[in-house]
């Protein structure tokens, strides 16, 4: 398989693991030094500028732990999500680095007693995703994930899962 095909496969796997709530496997796709960033201002330094999420893999591991093995109130009932990955564009940088960009449309809902406010609504998360990859001994790993949401400057409702 070409490197480009491997990256494309990995992009789809990342989306599928999130859709299927296989978050432990999802976390394994990331390198130890990886960052995950949902910016409010994608041109600013997230160290000192507010983001929706800006986290290292250590903190992401906390999120995964809370969602997988703790009974998080805001995920009971759990979100169901369908991610659409479109306009995929992959750039290789030598043999061991790559970048993938795509447009994301994620539709999320929570059922349960869906008539209650906060449940039963469909939330649309539309944005531009960018992944940086690096080849490790064990294969490609994500070193950075960024999703620039269309409505990142507006109030977010109940983002209690991993986008």
């Amino acid at each position, binding site marked *: 398989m070409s490197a480009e095909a491997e990256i494309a496969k990995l992009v789809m796997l990342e989306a599928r693991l999130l859709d299927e709530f296989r978050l432990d496997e999802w976390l394994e796709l990331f390198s130890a030094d990886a960052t995950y960033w*949902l910016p*409010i*201002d994608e041109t600013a330094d997230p*160290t*000192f*500028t*507010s*983001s*929706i*999420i*800006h*986290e290292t893999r*250590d*903190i992401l*591991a*906390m*999120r995964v*732990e*809370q969602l997988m093995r*703790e*009974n*998080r*109130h*805001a995920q009971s009932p759990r979100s169901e999500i369908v991610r659409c990955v479109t306009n995929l564009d992959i750039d290789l940088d030598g043999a061991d680095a790559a970048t993938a960009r795509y447009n994301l449309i994620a539709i999320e809902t929570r059922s349960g007693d869906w008539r*209650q*406010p*906060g*449940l039963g609504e469909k939330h649309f998360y539309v944005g531009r995703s960018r992944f940086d990859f690096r080849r490790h001994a064990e294969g490609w790993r994500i070193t950075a994930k960024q999703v620039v949401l269309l409505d990142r*400057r*507006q*109030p*977010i*409702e*109940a*983002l*209690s899962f991993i986008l």
Partner: protein
Amino acid sequence: MDLEAPPPTWTADRFGPFVTEDATEFKVATGAYHRADVFQAELKKIFYSTWIYLGHESEIAAPGDYKATWIGQQSVILVRDADGVARAFLNICRHRGAGLCREEQGNTKLFVCPYHGWSYGLDGRLAAIVDRSRFPDDFPTEEKGLIPVARVESYGGLIFGSLNAAVESLDSYLGEAKPHIDLWLGRCAGGRYRVAAPHRYAYRANWKLQAENVYDGYHAHFVHRSAYNTFQKFDNAFTGRQYTAIRSIGQTRGFPKGHGVLQAGSPLENKFVSAEIRQQYRDELERLNGKARTDEILENRHMLIFPSVVIMDNNIRVIQPRAVNHTEVYSYPMIIEGAHDDINSSRLHDVQTRVGPAGIIGVDDLEVFHGAQTAMSGPGVESITLSRGLHLEEQTPSGERIGAFTDETPQRAFWRRWQADMGGAQS
């Protein structure tokens, strides 16, 4: 009261019974959270009658800097004029009512109406009418300046506005909350705060559910157990605190003006700032304030200034009612100018990850609010109870009440004020 058929018009005395209190119980009628007529009355009797937080001085640092914000459902422009004075105006052109400002912030020399080009100076005066000649010679242009927010005053860099010209001074309004604001200002160690861009989130329930929640020391272990269990599994790096079901130290305070405070009795810390840098910061605070006051300054403290602004350790939260069952919250991380980069980065990331739009802790509260709004909006449930610590709290001569960390003391202060404002004369 009739829960299924709310009266079409509001009268002052109708809101008396919403809050009832005796020696054994403090009750709030559920209609206060879901009735549309109550919400309309709140806008008029609270949001358009008292002091509402507009912004921080650092958001309009330079002349011409402006920010669009809200008083209740009225769009307002907060601006720094050419002389450095903070002013606030209704966001409306005096000609045909067009909105002047469609951006959330920026810098300008004039506010120019997009409809017919009338322009206004930073002091609100009408600067020019396009083709003035077709208006009568004695058309009262001097009366056609922007409508000012009747009162604009600030304390410690916090700018408040009121649509009520007769409102008491901000200084008097803040009252017993001022020493607590001063302690929060003391965290700057001689420097100043600068706001970062806000974290913005929304929920589909009443604004008062968030207000009651910010100084609730009783709920944390239950609603947020999944987060606290997770923190413990990760060497407790995130808060540096052991959690117990009922915290035995710390206090709550409720003030006659309606403000309230939650004090944890210890600092909120994490392991993302090195011991050395933390000690340097502490040394500087002690040099300026002495040891005892430094301990007070660093104590984990949440404070709500009635009705809708919250001052927390690392951020200011603004609760914005959009409808009786729709609320937006803007949370502004507060950067300390001159502090070590690690301290500021830690302050920002603490509020972001813990209580931001995707907060490991905060989003679980919103889920509770949704559930509460669901059930309280239906028939059959007359009231909820806020009675924890009612018989045990201490009352000072000034009317301040002091309870345990997990008592509902600040919530009762909020509701007493709410009833006074909604029902007529303040007690």
